[in-house]
């Protein structure tokens, strides 16, 4: 049972981080479908930091990994920002392109690093298992992961930033009615850049948490198996509100965790359901939940529409 709790919390952390990223981007008016690609790139940055810092003190590893994945995510999200804000490109195409590009680029880069170190090594795996231990503090059978605390702090920060600061309220105005925001002197383009960049930081962090959540090493050519989109489902289910997103993420995290630990739970292993069914669970639940809750969804009104100063 502790194992289930542990996996639920860690997967919920991933979903909270990435869904908050999507939330900031959409509140500013840009639909970020490229979260999946941002996650992969952020994961790559973090994993490389862990690889090269193996043996350093824990604090250094933790801070450097967080900084590296956030930074890579941020830089990568600029590709979305430039295309969708300055060039008014179709946000769906760009998001999809970023997802494909993220996986392809990370695979190419990791493989190039691996083969240059050892010509026979053509895998797309980064060795970070030793460095990963710095993140984990064991309390009896429960492995506490520092990422859980980081997520909690960021969740609180996101809530305050969005609802209690001038910046957050302005950001939301840009996603609801950009012309009105512009008329009172808010720079819509800058705000949208800020929204997308925050989503890059949070998406990148979510990526590194995701790939270190499992036991084994992560193959980069697999991408993040739809987690970016699960996070978007969590965001919609959470009605674009940080607190509700957190609750939704816990629910989805539970279903994802079940596929890792079901064999250890007496009743579930006795039912003898094939493991594939557990793998399918999060996707099934999210489809179901979306079908039931989307009818009355309160999405930011101007999301997905490029802002054109001259338009009426």
């Amino acid at each position, binding site marked *: 049972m502790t194992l289930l709790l542990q996996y639920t919390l860690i997967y919920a952390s991933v979903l909270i981080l990435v869904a908050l990223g999507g939330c900031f981007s959409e509140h500013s008016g840009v639909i970020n479908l490229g979260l999946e690609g941002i996650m992969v790139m952020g994961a790559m940055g973090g994993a490389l930091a862990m690889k090269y810092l193996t043996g350093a003190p824990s604090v250094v590893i933790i801070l450097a990994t967080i900084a590296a994945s956030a930074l890579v995510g941020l830089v990568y999200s600029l590709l979305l920002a430039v295309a969708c804000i300055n060039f008014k490109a179709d946000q769906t195409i760009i998001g999809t392109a970023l997802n*494909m590009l993220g996986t392809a680029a990370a695979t190419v880069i990791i*493989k190039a690093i691996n083969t240059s170190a050892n010509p026979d090594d053509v895998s797309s795996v980064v060795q970070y298992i030793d460095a990963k231990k710095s993140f984990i503090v064991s309390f009896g059978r429960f492995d506490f992961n520092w990422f859980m605390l980081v997520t909690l702090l960021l969740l609180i920060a996101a809530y305050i930033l969005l609802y209690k600061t001038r910046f957050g309220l302005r950001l939301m105005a840009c996603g609801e009615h950009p012309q009105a925001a512009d008329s009172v002197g808010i720079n819509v383009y800058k705000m949208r850049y800020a929204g997308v960049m925050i989503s890059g930081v949070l998406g990148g962090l979510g990526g590194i948490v995701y790939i270190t959540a499992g036991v084994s090493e992560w193959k980069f050519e697999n991408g993040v198996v*739809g987690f970016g989109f699960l996070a978007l489902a969590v965001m919609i289910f959470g009605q674009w509100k940080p607190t509700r997103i957190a609750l939704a993420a816990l629910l989805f995290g539970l279903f994802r965790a079940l596929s890792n630990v079901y064999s250890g739970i007496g009743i579930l292993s006795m039912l003898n359901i094939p493991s594939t069914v557990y793998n399918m669970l999060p*996707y099934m639940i999210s489809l179901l939940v979306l079908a039931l809750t989307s*009818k009355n969804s309160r999405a930011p009104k101007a999301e997905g529409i490029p802002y054109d100063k001259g338009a009426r």
Partner: protein
Amino acid sequence: MNKESILKKPAVQALLSSLACIVLGLFAGFIVLTFIDARGAASALFDIIRNFFRYPSAPVALKYFGNTIVKTAPLLMCSLSILFAYKVGLFNIGVAGQYAFGTGLALFAALHWQLPWIVCILLACVGASLLGAISGFLKSYCNVNEVISGIMLNWLSLYTTNMMLTVVKETTSPYTKNIVNVNHSALLPNIGLDKLFNNNQYVTVAIPLAIVLSILVWFVLEKTKFGYELKATGFNKHAAKYCGMKEKRNTILTLIIAGALAGLGAAMFYLTGYEQWQCTQSSVPGMGFNGIAAAFLGGLHPIGAIFSSLFIQHITEGGAYVDKTLYCSQISDLISSIIIYLCGFVLFMKLALNKWLAKRDEAGSSKDAAGTGKGGRS
């Protein structure tokens, strides 16, 4: 007529912007290659573009060209699926899952039930269109974004397909049994095309069928009332509704047709016996996502898609020939994803081109006016 009028034609502009995407995409790929290892960058890029032309003997090259077009047929079907839905304002990202599920049904019918190919194709088509119908239903009645439901269905259908095909897999490998050994009647007929490609037995009726279907898609979209209604729904569903069109029905129908096209593509590839499905596959087949690249690169035109699919498949195959000690084959995925990214800028490029043309016209006409003024005086 002078040169300007050619540049103003939409078809020419579409072609130009696609070519610009390709050139920029290849250039970006070259930069990445140089960063990894500058020594082999030029030759690696050359390998990718050259693909089967590397074989000096014409018959061998012809055979490999056959392999490329065998894989182009499903890619073309996927890109048709994308562009058909896109014309109606829907982004059918579920194409990858529809393709996977189509594969599952076609192979299961062929290997387990031992059915003839025509039934296998129909089953794949119906199954995949069912997935499209789910997305369409959720979109029009539950307000679920088709991109998100599509992604969820992608994973669900990947797992379902893996489960289904594990029944008919080889006992010693994760791959499904070879149709050639199990059920000859499920193989697509060659109708003599294999002879054209140096007895490449994988070249089948699928290739002409794919071309016929792309012409059919063009015909339906551009020349029929049904296609007009669908496009009207895509432009503005409220306007379409008030004109008496059933906008919900149109949305669902569009995704059903898009799904059917993807399912057909899957059957048209796996029933050639060219490749077997790997039942432990952990990611959805890339064919669907490459289809997005092909659809946009082809300027969202069914006929353009034929050429763009061929190009995308050509560089994907070419990626297998790069020097493995320096680079990995994913480099061609990288290039095609950069091309998709650049396709997002096509609208902007056309806008810039038109602005430039207008400016040049203005300058030209004022010069003409000046010229005639002078002429009048002399």
